[in-house]
């Protein structure tokens, strides 16, 4: 009884909140101050065609470093708790995956990884960026693991990619502080022409490093989860 009352009260509260938002909502005819600043000054200041990327990597670059750190800590904790025991494991005999899955995996895996690399390398031109590209690469590895669950990744390689790109990201940030205007400033490499692949200073470098790092981390998490499925 009290539970139902509580639920109804909660729903009424939500309705009130959303209703008041809807009643007072009106469309902005021009951009508010902060978005207008970004829209006007991104191209001359940062040289990135994609405003979202400019905000994420340069204007709010420190937040992105924090997000990457959070992801790194999460991946390390998962690796710690799901440590693969060296004891002889009971070999799991999963059902062989269907012909459709295994054949399409062979075709799609390189394409998905290529698309992920495209998304993070073109983060300053087209929608997407390091996190999106890394997540797309991880879905490619997920497809690989689903098609053959006994697949083994090279943990050492993944860890090396992850740590090297993470360290280089911070080093580029410090280089920006020394050679440019501040930590994670992208203007110490020449901005180039707006809209070309080699433009926007350090943004493509930073986003490629983030993409590699996120892709390696998520693939590592998936592989750890897949490995412990074999244990009893």
């Amino acid at each position, binding site marked *: 009884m009290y539970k139902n009352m509580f639920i109804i009260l909660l729903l009424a509260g939500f309705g009130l909140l959303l209703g008041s938002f809807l009643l007072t909502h009106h469309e902005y005819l021009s951009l508010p101050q902060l978005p207008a600043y970004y829209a006007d000054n991104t191209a001359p200041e940062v040289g990135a065609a994609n405003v*979202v990327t400019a905000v994420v990597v340069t204007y709010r670059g420190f937040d992105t470093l924090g997000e990457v750190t959070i992801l790194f800590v999460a991946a390390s904790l998962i690796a710690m708790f799901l440590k693969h025991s060296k004891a002889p494991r009971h070999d799991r005999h999963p059902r062989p995956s269907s012909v459709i899955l295994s054949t399409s995996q062979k075709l799609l895996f390189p394409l998905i990884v290529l698309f992920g690399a495209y*998304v993070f390398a073109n983060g300053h031109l087209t*929608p*997407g*960026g390091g*996190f*999106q590209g890394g*997540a*797309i690469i*991880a*879905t490619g590895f*997920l497809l690989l693991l*689903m098609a053959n669950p006994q697949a083994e990744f090279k943990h050492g390689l993944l860890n090396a990619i992850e740590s090297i790109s993470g360290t280089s990201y911070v080093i580029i940030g410090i280089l920006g502080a020394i050679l440019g205007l501040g930590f994670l400033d992208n203007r110490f490499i020449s901005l180039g022409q707006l809209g070309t692949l080699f433009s926007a200073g350090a943004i493509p470098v930073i986003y490629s490093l983030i993409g590699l790092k996120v892709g390696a981390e*998520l693939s590592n*998490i*998936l592989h750890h*989860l*897949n490995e*412990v*499925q074999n244990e*009893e």
Partner: protein
Amino acid sequence: MITIILAIVLGLVMISMAIAALTAYRVRAAVLASGIVSLIASIIYLLLAAPDVAMTEAAIGSGLTTIIFFYVLNKIRRSDV
């Protein structure tokens, strides 16, 4: 106009999938329904002109999270029978 109709239809499907995820008897069906909620959310982000968010939602929300749920479910079943 057609965008608004598409958005309303997608929103209705999304809400019904969310209710299905809450009330489903089998956990597997609930996980799949929540994956569909994420998938439709990513299409709605695309309609709202936020392709960056849509990409993340499609890859992580509907791809990785669903499979991680299945991995964990499989693990729980095996150790908790």
